[in-house]
């Protein structure tokens, strides 16, 4: 057991725990942030995506010890931002949410993409969400939502 300190959704936090625990488990069990989901548990589905130091990352593959002093953002940390609301409305309007299991991860991937590239073309969008699986929508509606969010958030991203 050791104390790990990091910034979680813009608050400094510390936790006394085993550094080998998966960040996903720590977020869900200790911090009750349940938007990151466990899909495959092996880095292939993206349902557990979070943003660490500005980069999209699968929290199921990250040991707690590696986030010491890092800045971690989950979708719960985005809800009050303009960017999130643009994405939320775009996802709604495009019909990009069906069962919803992949949605938090997809939103994180969309957010990570648009903050680095505010005007992605379709190939870049497909690449940006290539690590996120959705078994409902067939992806077209999600891609549509990201295009919409890119256009509507022109000055925000």
């Amino acid at each position, binding site marked *: 057991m050791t104390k790990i300190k990091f910034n979680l959704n813009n608050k400094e936090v510390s936790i006394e725990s085993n*550094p080998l625990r998966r960040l996903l488990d720590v977020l869900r069990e200790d911090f009750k942030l349940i938007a990151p989901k466990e899909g495959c*548990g092996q*880095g*292939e589905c993206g349902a557990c995506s979070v943003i*660490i130091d500005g980069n999209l990352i699968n929290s199921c*593959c*990250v040991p707690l010890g590696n986030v010491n002093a890092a800045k971690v953002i989950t979708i719960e940390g985005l809800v009050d931002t303009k960017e999130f609301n643009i994405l939320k409305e775009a996802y709604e309007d495009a019909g990009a949410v069906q069962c919803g299991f992949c949605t938090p991860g997809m939103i994180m991937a969309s957010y*990570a993409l648009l903050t680095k590239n505010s005007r992605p073309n379709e190939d870049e969008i497909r*690449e940006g969400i290539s*690590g996120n699986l959705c078994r409902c929508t067939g992806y077209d509606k999600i891609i549509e939502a990201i295009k919409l969010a890119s256009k509507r958030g022109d000055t925000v991203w």
Partner: protein
Amino acid sequence: MVISKEENSNIILYLPESLKEALEVISREETIILSGGTDLMVRRKRPSGLIPRFDKNTIFVANLAELKKIYTLRDYLHIGAACTFSEISNYELIPDYFKIVIKDIASPAIRNVATIGGNICNASPAADILPLLYALEAELVVGSLKGDRIIFIEDFIVAPGRNVLGSDEILKEIRIPIVNFNEYYYKKVGTRKATAISKLSFIGFINVEEDVIKDVRIAFGAVAPTIVKSKKMENELIGKNINNLDEISEELIEDYSDLINPIDDQRSNKNYRKQVAVNLLKDFLKLK
């Protein structure tokens, strides 16, 4: 350095703050070296909510500043072992062929944590970065308290999952001689574009001046226990006229076929792998 003793187990976890601290730990006890975690955390995972099964003392090296440097010095590109694939791809002086190989590795989120050192030490026959590093004849700087030694990549990996690292050693840096090629050719064959483990992969570099081959590098991934690259065959190609290769084509393909010994597994089968590997070689050298 933070030293963490875990309840209900004999395992000690080390979170060093410098490479020197890390070397001191591994010099006195056998440890698992944990970098980005994308292989080890998955291979050692247990059911949801449980701590992954690490059965030995473990040392966290992903954040060691000494292993995160990337720079160009004289005729070498130096990449720290704990650099992630995204960091390598974003380095301003990185050659295009690195970007192309890296773009086909896993997914953006994995590339943001997976490290080049992890991919090398893991020594999978299907490791995505290895054919490129073999083709470029990369050198590995391996360190211990006793000092550094330099090992050619093809001497470093000895079998699937096995490398020559001593228990007191760590991979510090990858040194890549910078050579200019007029042409490169890369193909990763997988079931889908993202997060695929290779069925096989092929990389070729060639330097042709006035139709004469000046330098050539050819490497195959996932078609044998380790990456296939033959200096002997490359030397045979050097000095040949690029337009007359059909004369030696049969012999060349036969010699490479002897080295290409793929297996059947859940991803593909040996006949397919061998056939596609040969087809890619022919396509690269524009053989009939």
